């Protein structure tokens, strides 16, 4: 207990830095939450459309216009051709539908007249064309079996009224997931910094040459002493992980109590182990307390930038991502990103995430082997 208590006292001495890293994380998380992001549920969208109608008198044409008005935002663009082109260019409308002269009578005669369409080619324009194609297909079929305008309009409208229920297969709350993913990815910085900084600083005090010498001549078993230091570091890292996950629950909400949330938590736990192993390795190399701050900044900030904790990986150049592969942070953030995008949780979708976690554990083992190699080498010198 003596060593553990002293460990905690030295940690207490550096409480300011722990609070600072936590505040940075909370600050970022709050900004992220307040800026919103993501959508939830299914929403019927209406694209903006302009109509140039040269067949205003026909009831058949009027029925088409009514349909478009009902299923899209028909915009009245004043000023003719040039103004329409400008509206299209500035994306005020997604497409222009040109209805030619005698359109109504041609439909009734079964001629299947063509509508001219000018579009931006974007998602809304495609949607407008789909809405229009749907109507034209029904209109053409109905026109073949009817002779009067009234009957044609009636048949078209009754066919259009048949609605399809939309079942949302994915019930992911994208907003909450996006918050969780961003929070946990950013937490990679705080977890790394908080664990490496404190563990290195505290262990450098315990490993200080003269203190080590004084401990070596005491009746404390050296192996037991090293084990207590390792356990104390582990307890500290666990506490950091626990606090950051409690904060995660506050920030991401109920999603943290789902299978997906558990995977975020497991991923962060494994990442904390690798950070602890890295901290232990660094403490065997670093003996100067002043150097610890610089090293922590280089490692925590550097890996966070390279691996996409601050900037999404899709915006990072390939060569940066290639370098990032040699850092555990990359695999940790990659798992968080994947978790926010997979539709359903099953063995197939979770397997790549588990492989990522195994890679992180592999890094932890590598760091531990290096630490033990350095320690043994120092002992024989």
């Amino acid at each position: 207990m003596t060593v553990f208590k002293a460990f905690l006292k030295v940690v207490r001495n550096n409480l300011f830095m722990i609070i600072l890293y936590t505040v940075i994380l909370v600050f970022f998380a709050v900004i992220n939450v307040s800026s919103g992001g993501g959508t939830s549920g299914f929403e019927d969208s209406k694209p903006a459309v302009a109509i140039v109608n040269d067949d205003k008198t026909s009831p058949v044409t009027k029925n088409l216009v009514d349909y478009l008005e009902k299923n899209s935002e028909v915009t009245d663009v004043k000023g003719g051709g040039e103004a329409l082109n400008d509206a299209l260019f500035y994306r005020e409308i997604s497409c222009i539908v040109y209805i030619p002269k005698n359109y109504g009578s041609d439909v009734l005669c079964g001629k299947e007249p063509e509508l001219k369409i000018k579009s931006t080619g974007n998602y809304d324009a495609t949607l407008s064309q789909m809405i229009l194609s749907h109507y034209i297909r029904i209109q053409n079929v109905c026109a073949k079996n009817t002779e009067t305008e009234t009957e044609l309009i009636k048949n078209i409208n009754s066919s259009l009224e048949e609605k399809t229920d939309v079942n949302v297969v994915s019930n992911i709350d994208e907003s909450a997931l996006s918050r969780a993913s961003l929070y946990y990815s950013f937490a990679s910085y705080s977890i790394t910094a908080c664990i490496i900084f404190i563990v290195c600083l505290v262990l450098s005090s315990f490993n200080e040459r003269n203190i080590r010498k004084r401990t070596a001549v005491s009746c404390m078993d050296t192996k037991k002493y090293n084990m207590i230091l390792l356990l104390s570091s582990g307890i500290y890292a666990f506490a950091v992980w626990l606090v950051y996950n409690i904060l995660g629950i506050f920030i991401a909400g109920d999603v943290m109590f789902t299978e997906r949330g558990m995977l975020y938590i497991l991923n962060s736990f494994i990442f904390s182990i690798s950070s602890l192993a890295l901290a232990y390795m660094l403490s065997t190399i670093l003996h100067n307390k002043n150097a610890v701050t610089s090293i922590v900044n280089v490692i925590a900030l550097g890996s966070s930038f390279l691996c996409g904790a601050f900037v999404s990986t899709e915006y990072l150049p390939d060569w940066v991502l290639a370098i990032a592969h040699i850092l555990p942070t990359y695999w940790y953030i990659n798992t968080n990103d994947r978790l926010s995008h997979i539709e359903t949780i099953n063995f197939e979708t979770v397997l790549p995430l588990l492989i990522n976690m195994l890679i992180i554990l592999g890094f932890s083992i590598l760091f531990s082997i290096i630490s033990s190699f350095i320690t043994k080498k120092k002992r024989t010198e």
Partner: protein
Amino acid sequence: MNKKVIEVSGLVKEYKNLRAVDGLSFEVYEKEILGFLGPNGSGKSTTINCILSLLKYNEGDIKIFDRKMGPDSYEIKKNIGVIFQDVAVFDELTVYENVDYFCGLYIRSKNTRKEYIQSALELVGLEDYKKFRPKQLSGGLLRRLNIACGIAHKPKLIFLDEPTVAVDPQSRNNILDGIKKLRDGGATVVYTTHYMEEAEQLCDRIIIIDKGRIIAQGTSDSLKKLAKIEEKITVEVSGQAEKLIPKIKELNNVNDVVFENGLLVVSYGGGSDNIGDIIDLFRSNNVKYNKIYSERPTLNDVFLELTGKELRD
């Protein structure tokens, strides 16, 4: 004679091309203060580190409390306290917490520890600094804290490796008084220093070491006899003294005369009123002087006699 606490025989420690300790053999007896005296680099600290199993040695045998000492001899280590030359304390802990930590490595009981810490702090005079952090202490107080950390668990055998280096006179006296109290309380002390005055003042027995070998050992008085001088007279000369040197050498009992930087040092092998003879000689030859004083031989003279060099070199 008291029981043997430490027995070292034929100790050899080599570093590549250097033989730092060259076949040392000695004993330390219960309740004595043994001075380990020698110039810097003579092998004092290496010997202590070998005894404490902090260094592997090439040859020899070391026994403490009648048992072979090794890195895993935790039963022996329970009764050993070590105060190293360099201060070994946590900057992040207070004076009390530091002593508590190091005492806690030996003593589990919280109540016993509390009592021991109090007595250690009183011994080194740090009762009023319990809540201070090491950085708030002066060099002397820091050394005292270093000692408190090493002796708080009330060890039977204490090693002090140059504990008074760069310490103010007040703290130095406090430290030396504390060491005497520890001996009086029943502890055996091995005291390493290159300050001969400290060794003379404090130690019951002294071992003089040079180039990893013991060149002399015994009490302060028995060692001084090795210097082959009884008295040393020093004259601060203001006039021409060179012409007097042949005449001084002709005086009774004079062993040696050295004149350097205005100081004339005359060594005697015996006799009485030697200082009167010197004063008469200066007066009769009309040579002026500022000061004249007589000294008993020191351990430095012993070292000089045995090695041909000063202990401070």
